[in-house]
Structure formats: structure tokens, C-alpha cells
């Protein structure tokens, strides 16, 4: 299976703490994208990291990519209640450019 896998499945932290989510995949990729999904809503693109990049920042988000280990991490610093959502990594294959989805990490930020 080419499926991406997020870890942990669920994460509950206090507001203000940092949240780290991990992703592993099996195939060769062109890039890896992270998306957020609020309950009952669509997926919102957060950040894209190319296969030749190792780290990328966007506001309170920091993404790393290790293509040798086929893994990525998403760090959200100084978490807020509004960050409560499910987070999905979506590696994009370099064969047919499809996004590969896992089951996501459900993040709960406690006020």
C-alpha cells in the first residue's frame, strides 16, 4: 500500500503547548503536503515541502522532511484552541502525482 500514516492518531494538549505530528509513507515522492480539516468541513492546505527541502516554516508551523526515512513531521508552536482539528499529511507521488492520504491525527487543544 502507498498509504500515508500519521502518528499519533489522536493528541490532546494544553493551549500554549507545542504539538508535533508525524507522518510516514512508502513511495517515492515529489513533495509532501499537510492539510487541516475542521469537523464537518473540507481540507485546507497548510504547507507544502518539496522532496529536495528538509525544513519549511509558515507562521507557527514548522515542517520537516526526511526522504531517506520516508517521514515528515508537523510542529505547531504555541497552540491555540482554534488549532483543534484533524491534520493530514499527503505525500504526492512522483509517478502519477497523486496525493496519498492517511487517517490523520486528531488534535485537541484544551483551553
Amino acid at each position, binding site marked *: 500500500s502507498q*498509504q500515508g500514516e500519521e502518528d499519533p492518531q489522536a493528541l490532546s494538549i494544553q493551549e500554549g503547548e507545542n504539538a508535533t505530528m508525524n507522518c510516514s509513507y512508502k513511495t517515492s515522492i*515529489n*513533495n509532501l*503536503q499537510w*492539510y487541516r480539516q475542521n469537523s464537518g*468541513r*473540507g*481540507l*485546507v*492546505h497548510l504547507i*507544502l515541502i*518539496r522532496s529536495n527541502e528538509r525544513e519549511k516554516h509558515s507562521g507557527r508551523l514548522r515542517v520537516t522532511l526526511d526522504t531517506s526515512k520516508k517521514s515528515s513531521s508537523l510542529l505547531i508552536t504555541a497552540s491555540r484552541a482554534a488549532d483543534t482539528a484533524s491534520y*493530514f499529511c499527503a505525500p*504526492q507521488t512522483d509517478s*502519477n502525482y*497523486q*496525493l496519498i*492520504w*492517511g*487517517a*490523520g491525527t486528531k488534535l485537541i487543544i484544551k483551553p
Partner: protein
Amino acid sequence: EPEVTQTPSHQVTQMGQEVILRCVPISNHLYFYWYRQILGQKVEFLVSFYNNEISEKSEIFDDQFSVERPDGSNFTLKIRSTKLEDSAMYFCASKAGTGTGYVQPQHFGDGTRLSIL
């Protein structure tokens, strides 16, 4: 900011009936996608569409499914004879054309919740 819109937000249909889910992608985008997500589970790719034809489709996208871009703005997913297991959220996404070496993200609509009775 331009967005992908999907209608209806919720569709309830009797098993065996045909259903059409509608999407208006972001204008000037060139790539279009349908995904589905069974409640609480992973997102599943159904089909991608480019240059007025299907470019990729998954095993889920069998003969009961079809897609159309009937005019310059709409992108539809039709399920001919719905089954109970078709109940899910269906998401449409679109993506801008890519220049050499530049990768674009996909933009998603808020989905249509399809309930088959």
C-alpha cells in the same frame, strides 16, 4: 480568496437512485479531483480530470461513477445506482496549472454529505 464550492451540502437518496454532486472549481484552475471520506476515516482518491478527460481513477471509481465538466465552470460526479456503502462525504478539489518545477496545492470544497437510505 477564491474558493471551491460544492452543492448540495447534504444529499439524502434512496438506494438504487442516481445522484449528481456538483462542484464549481476555482476559475482558471486546470486540474480537478473527486475524493470521498467515510465518517472518521481516511480520504480516498476517486478520480482526477484534466484537459476534459479522466487522467487517473482509483479502484473505487467503477462503472457506476462518472464525471463531467459540462461547461466552463461546473464539475460533476454522478453515481448511477447508489449503494448503502456509497454513504460518505464527497470532496471536490481543484488545482492551478503547474509551470516547470513549480508545484501547486489542491484547493478543496466543504464537501457534500451523501446519505443512502
